[in-house]
């Protein structure tokens, strides 16, 4: 009897960690980004419905899961699809057409999916999101960080080219929001308690390098798509390059409300006004 129970427990454990099939559908939508100061500019995003929303869909899968991803081009121009640092899914999608790609990821990580067509214009226009690969059951939060130069969006939307050597962004967002609104996003705002293990998945889908500084705590790098040798480092400031991903682990040792912001302090602004930029707080109780 004891052996049977042991086998049953083992069988359940195997079942609970077995890879599963995950199907997702993403629409390429065109719309308008309304910034924290009310200014609006042309924008695009990968959304789960045909309705435009400025925040790109966050896709979550387990390690070794089979992800089947259908992407529908809901726009009037050609788009593309790719996953950074993943081989074999780079595709073009004609207007009104769709493609299906499959992927599987062998370790806990975070990837950037993006529109690879007309690079970097389409990805800059907003078409880039994150794929989170995780089997852990810890609290999770997600930051897709990005910067925007209003005039560039409107210029690219009209089909003109821009000079990336003159790029000077004026809006800085996490999941499409800036301070203070970003604190309302429960996926973004880190909340937890002392000694709790918290995972933070960060992607940079902008063109600039951002240097995220955490008040109050050091965090451990669990995954870095660009610098694998950095895994295990305990730091308070984390540079993140364009189209790269980081997974950080936080175990708070005290209560309090602590900010996180890009330490290129120009980014703590929106439309040239401090402090409507890349600034969020964590709340540990």
């Amino acid at each position, binding site marked *: 009897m004891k052996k049977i129970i042991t086998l049953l427990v083992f069988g359940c454990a195997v079942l609970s960690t077995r890879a599963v099939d995950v199907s997702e559908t993403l629409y390429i939508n065109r719309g308008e980004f309304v910034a924290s100061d009310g200014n609006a500019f042309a924008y695009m995003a990968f959304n789960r419905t045909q309705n435009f929303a400025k925040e790109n869909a966050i896709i979550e899968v387990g390690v070794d899961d089979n992800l089947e991803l259908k992407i529908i081009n809901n726009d009037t121009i050609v788009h593309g699809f790719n996953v950074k640092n993943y081989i074999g899914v780079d595709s073009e999608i004609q207007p009104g057409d769709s493609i299906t790609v499959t992927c599987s990821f062998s370790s806990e990580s975070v990837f950037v999916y993006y529109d690879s067509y007309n690079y970097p214009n389409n990805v800059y226009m907003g078409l880039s999101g994150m794929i989170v690969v995780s089997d852990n059951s810890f609290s999770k939060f997600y930051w897709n960080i990005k910067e925007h130069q209003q005039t560039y969006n409107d210029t690219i939307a009209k089909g003109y080219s821009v000079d990336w050597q003159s790029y000077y962004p004026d809006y800085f967002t996490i999941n499409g929001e800036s301070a203070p609104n970003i604190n309302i996003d429960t996926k973004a705002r880190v909340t937890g308690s002392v000694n709790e293990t918290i995972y933070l998945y960060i992607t940079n889908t902008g063109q*600039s390098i951002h240097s995220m500084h955490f008040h109050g705590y050091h965090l451990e790098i669990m995954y870095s798509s660009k610098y694998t040798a950095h895994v295990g*480092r305990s730091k308070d400031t984390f540079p993140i390059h364009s189209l790269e991903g980081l997974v950080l682990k936080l175990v708070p040792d*005290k209560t309090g409300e602590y900010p996180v912001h890009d*330490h290129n302090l120009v980014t703590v602004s929106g439309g040239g006004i401090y402090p409507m930029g890349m600034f969020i707080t964590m709340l540990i109780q």
Partner: protein
Amino acid sequence: MMKALLTSYFVFVFCMVNVFAQNDVNVMLIVRNTGIKILDNGDTIRVFGFAENLGSQPDVPGVTIYANEGDSVHIDLFNVSQGAPHTIHLHGLDVNQQNDGVPQLSFEVEHMDHGYYHFKAPHAGTYLYHCHVESPIHVQAGMYGLVIIRPSDGSNTTWNGGPYYHKELSLFMSEIDTVWHSDSVLNHPYDTSLAVTPAPLPIYNPQFFLVNGSSGQQLIDNSVELNTQAASRNYIRLTNIGYYGNRVILPTALNSKIIASDGRSLPQVEYTDTVYVYPGERYGVLAEADIEFVDSIKIEYFDLNTYAVKGVEYISVNVSGFNSVEEAVNSKNNLSVSPNPYAEKAIITVKIVAESLVSIQIIDVKGRLVKDFENAQKAAGIYTYQISNYIETSGIYFVTLSLDGRVVETQKLIKK
């Protein structure tokens, strides 16, 4: 017997407490917003900053705060400037919310008020302090300084039980955009009834690129340089409080390795002559030349949006040789490998001048342990170890000699 044991115990505890006494470190920082800074071209700009006393003007960067790990640090921030209030954020020190210096989440210090900050010095390492009121403006205005936490015993080791160094050099990078130093920017709006007062920021386009507050000829005049000897170990602290990225290119002959970042030791040492330091980051680099040479550390300042290098500064490096054979023997040459490069076999020779806990390791360029030769108490003498088939892959490796837990010497080893 019991009494004797108890006496011994209390004597031991008393001695240990006194060996690593945890002190109170009291620091006073005077905030002024009418400082004058002379730039490399002779122009002057208005700066905000921290002065050491009421009789002095603020310097950029502000005074460096030193403490030993475990010390209780107390900072009295006295704001004698008119205009907006100020704070200090203790960057990387992981203080509690009350001492974190973000005005809307802790407190701000008004004109002619004192603000008191307290923290227990954490891990030995390099940290920062800066004002967090209207931070893009106040940091650019000059309100920043270094905090250096030494090991508990105050020794020249990187952290408790870490590598020993002979010489230390801090390179603290920032930029100056003179437009941001005009009265129209520095006298920004401030409404104490608001959690945060909105303030316009000018386009950031710095013209001056600073190391320890100096640039160009000022670096030479102010002796911002590395003067050292071959076989001396130098600890270089790199810190970036600017809004650009820094690419720090060290002379290859310094045999540099990154061992720490943001006040913590790295789990794997990184051997490199190029260190990227992004805004708010700090790195600890051990540098030890084998030969006499003159060169410079090149620091590039690049725009984080365009990646274009907008400024370059040079820090002179002068590595002198030994004055005598005796000096050379006493300073180093405890570790040699021959032949080097080698194909099949090589001999490591170690000279121990006093009984020590001796550890000899071979590590690869990624800092991974390849072979652990020795880890035992050894009397003074000369010891040899044979490298035979431990290394299968051709390439560069490092042999390290540690005495009493401290890496005292490293030799490059080439497997053909």
